[in-house]
């Protein structure tokens, strides 16, 4: 292609030379919060003429929140700030040309010959009405091709959303300035890869911070900092909608250890070591954690809702437990994100076995994460009998049948939910403990390819 069209390439180079060179002293730092908010600090040097002057900033985020814009430079005072969305389009061009002259180029269909004439644009309502000499015409009323050539782009039409600041400065000269603003469209979360080794019950965990940019703008060579926090953003109250509660996949006992990472206030910071270009529509990942051989425990858990009775046996959850403690654990606090578990198959290839969401988790916490259903370990819970003993007093007899189709014995944490208030267990086939105020837990051993049964009688208000 290059060889065929040397002329094109030549003209391209000459045209490019006309463009102003990109500002070399442009320095962007981006601080991204975990809730789709970012603080952009754009350091550049500005050329101040002295007196009143209009400064224009292109390449700011297309989703900029104009009310958060602050421009700081020495010896200037800001008169007003504008964020212009009056964008350059063919329709706007024609609208702004009302009362002005444009050039029409007509092409005769039969001969292909071009004729030119000047026309005055009278109106652009529904159709374009032109005055050519003494005639009034409607543009392309006959459907024939007519090119319209405009002399110039009006000053107030912008090719891109542009931030402009009107300043007043007593004295001129080039000086450094910082433009800062908040923008949505930039966010980050953590992604963890946990490889579980079945033979020795150890986890290898890699952590990546994942940064996404859908703000419509590319941030070149930016100094990037990630903050494990979700500061409150001003949201109009009527747009608030309650989010449905997510199924609880992760259970965490919060820890009390302090990590060694950089902190500001109560927040942990994850600076990205090198300057990076955050392109629009890009997902970027940078490693922040790599720990090998963390002891982990594989367990099964089944949580029966109050009066839960199932037609067919239901799968227990496959659960992995480990700590984020410095001793025998991950030894780090974990920013919120997704933990994906992998396991080697018989050929030694890692296969995905499920994932769990975690919240910002302090160091020293005990995590109990579910990856999905266990195919072979099932629980069949049945309400055997319900008897009303009197006013607000019920006796409920429950039976739980547990089965294990695996060729090895397993231990299941059987949980009965919903024991609110002054409920009690009056009889049970094995001793339970209260996992939390309203949850009873039985630790049930099931032999290889075997069964187990737990029965319990509850006295409750409902």
């Amino acid at each position, binding site marked *: 292609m290059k060889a065929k069209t040397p002329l094109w390439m030549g003209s391209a180079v000459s045209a490019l030379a006309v463009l102003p060179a990109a500002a070399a002293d442009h320095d962007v730092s981006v601080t991204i919060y975990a809730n789709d908010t970012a603080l952009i600090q754009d350091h550049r040097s500005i050329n101040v003429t002295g007196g009143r002057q209009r400064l224009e900033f292109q390449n700011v985020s297309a989703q900029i929140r104009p009310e958060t814009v602050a421009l700081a430079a020495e010896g200037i005072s800001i008169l007003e700030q504008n964020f212009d969305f009056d964008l350059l389009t063919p329709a706007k061009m024609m609208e702004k040309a009302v009362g002005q002259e444009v050039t029409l180029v007509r*092409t005769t269909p039969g001969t292909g010959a071009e004729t030119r004439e000047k026309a005055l644009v009278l109106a652009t309502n*529904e159709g374009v009405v032109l005055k050519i000499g003494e005639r009034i015409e409607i*543009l392309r009323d006959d459907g024939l091709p007519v090119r319209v050539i405009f002399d110039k782009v009006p000053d107030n039409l912008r090719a891109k959303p542009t931030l402009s600041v009107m300043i007043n400065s007593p004295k001129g000269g080039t000086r450094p300035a910082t433009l800062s603003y908040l923008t949505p469209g930039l966010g980050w979360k953590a992604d963890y890869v946990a490889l579980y080794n079945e033979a020795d019950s150890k986890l290898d965990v890699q952590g990546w911070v994942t940064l996404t940019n859908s703000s419509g703008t590319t941030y070149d060579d930016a100094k990037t900092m990630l903050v494990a926090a979700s500061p409150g953003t001003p949201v109009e109250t009527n747009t608030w909608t309650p989010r449905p509660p997510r199924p609880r996949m992760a259970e965490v006992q919060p820890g009390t250890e302090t990590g060694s990472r950089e902190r500001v206030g109560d927040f942990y910071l994850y600076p990205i070591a090198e300057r990076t270009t955050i*392109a629009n529509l890009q997902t*970027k990942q940078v490693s922040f954690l790599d720990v090998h051989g963390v002891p982990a425990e594989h367990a099964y858990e089944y949580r029966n809702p109050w009066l839960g009775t199932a037609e067919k046996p239901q799968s227990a959850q496959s659960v992995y437990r480990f700590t984020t403690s410095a001793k025998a654990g991950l030894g780090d606090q974990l920013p919120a994100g997704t933990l*994906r578990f992998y396991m080697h198959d018989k050929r030694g290839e890692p296969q995905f*076995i499920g994932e769990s969401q975690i919240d910002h988790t302090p160091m020293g916490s005990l995590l109990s994460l579910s990856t999905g*259903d266990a195919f072979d370990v099932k629980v069949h819970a049945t309400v055997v009998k*319900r008897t009303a003993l009197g006013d607000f007093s019920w006796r409920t007899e429950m039976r739980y049948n547990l089965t294990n189709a695996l060729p090895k014995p397993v231990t299941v944490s059987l949980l009965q939910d919903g024991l609110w208030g002054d409920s009690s267990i009056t009889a049970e086939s094995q001793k339970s403990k209260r996992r939390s105020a309203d949850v009873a837990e039985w630790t049930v051993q099931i032999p290889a390819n075997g069964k187990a049964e737990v029965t319990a009688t509850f006295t409750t208000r409902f």
Partner: protein
Amino acid sequence: MLGSLPLAAAAMDVTVPREGDLSVTVYRAPDRQEGQLSLDDLGGFALVTETRTVNVPQGDNRIRFEGVADGIEAESALITGLPGAVIEKNRDQAVLTPEALIKATFGKSVMIARTNPKTGKVKRIPAKIRTDTRGRVLVETSEGIEAVHCSGLPESISFITHPDLSSTPTLSARVRSPAATTAKVTLSYLTRGFDWTASYTATLAADQKTMNLGAWVTLGNSNGTGFSSARTQIVAGRVNHETDEVEPFYIPAVLAQCWPTGTTTSDLRRIEEIVVTGQRRDAMQFSVVAPAAEAPAAPAELVKLEQLGDLKLYRVPERTTLNSRQIKQVRLLDRQNIPVELYYAADLVGNTTIASTAARKTIRTRNDTAHHLGLPLPSGQVSSFITGNGATLLLDEVPLRDTAVDEEIELTVGSSPDVQIESVKEKTNVYTRPPFLEGVVRFKSALIDEINRIEIQNATPAEIKLELRLQLPDGTHVIAADAATSTSGGRTLFKLPVPANRTATVRYQTEHISMRPEVRK
């Protein structure tokens, strides 16, 4: 074509095409109901693992992996085997589209090509793109400012510079290598747009005492990317996985909007919209059709099962090609002469009069070796057939849940108009008991018992086994019945035989305490 052009951006880009070993593991949609699979809405996902050979130059480079699935969940991507330090990995969704091309060429030179309608000669005029607002293209030429696609002349834009856009979504890694080297890199990622289901055919013998069970694994790939000669695995069991955080892969069409184009004869259309080009995925409906009843004439090679943690992994015996937008089937199992128990079943709401309804014909067997099974049965759809008199009839299509070894299997194989069940509530007795509480509010309690009759008509020429399940309100239980009772799934169950061409009757009595608060005057 693009590869031959000089690269505009980072000169140290290394593009790695797809080659080498490929492995695809397909997972089913975590929350899909058993059964349905539609190519337009595949809610499952896959783990793609591939190896590529990369020539890594010395220093700071960007390695671009082209041809990854378009449904890639970039945050799950893992790249191992790169030399030196991986500084970051990126996934650029900005692919080469007409609009992206215009956006990327903003302020740069292009050529406007106009074709003379008479001579057909093309005239090229250098121009500069002056706007990158979505699809509304204004260019500057030596004559002035013009809008493209508004004059009615055949016009097109030729782009000269090569924008930093790739033809397919691309995963890249920034790598700092101490020396130039050739590395074997393993790339793995999760991708949307896959799903699978098991499609069973249960063929009941004429005597209804045994059945043959066969199954296909039906898997689909709705990605724009195909995977040729891949080692293919399927994972059974429900795994937690959320894909809703991935933004839909959206390629907007370019709309050229001109000035108002109303004329004296037009309908006063305000805006003429010219679709320059666009990509639309045609809605294609693929539903999985029940496979033929007979076992395949030539026995198909079965997938190989292995345990993966708490899941089941099936390997497709040979490398296979998963084309873009394709549904494919591989054989899961074939079992013959499985002993089954045939019975008729009905679910009844207790203490209610219900008109005659047909019973469900059901077969029961156990997933163990004694019943010629004893293998995990992944969830899917079961199409049941009956053979006899040289004909094969479709009986029913029902879902099957994930069934472990040694679990009971019950399959509904249609309803039987020859077995009708009717319930009649005969009598209600109310015994008032003294109030429990004295005070402002007291409770009036009553012991209520109800007597019901169930009538079963058997018009079949054989004795049948019948199982009736009773749904009773909370706190109500059966205190007497003239048939054997047990419980199933927390409900009272009556099991009885009904002789050929006869009527059978079951009477049962229930009891519960009713309490109503009553305000004392």
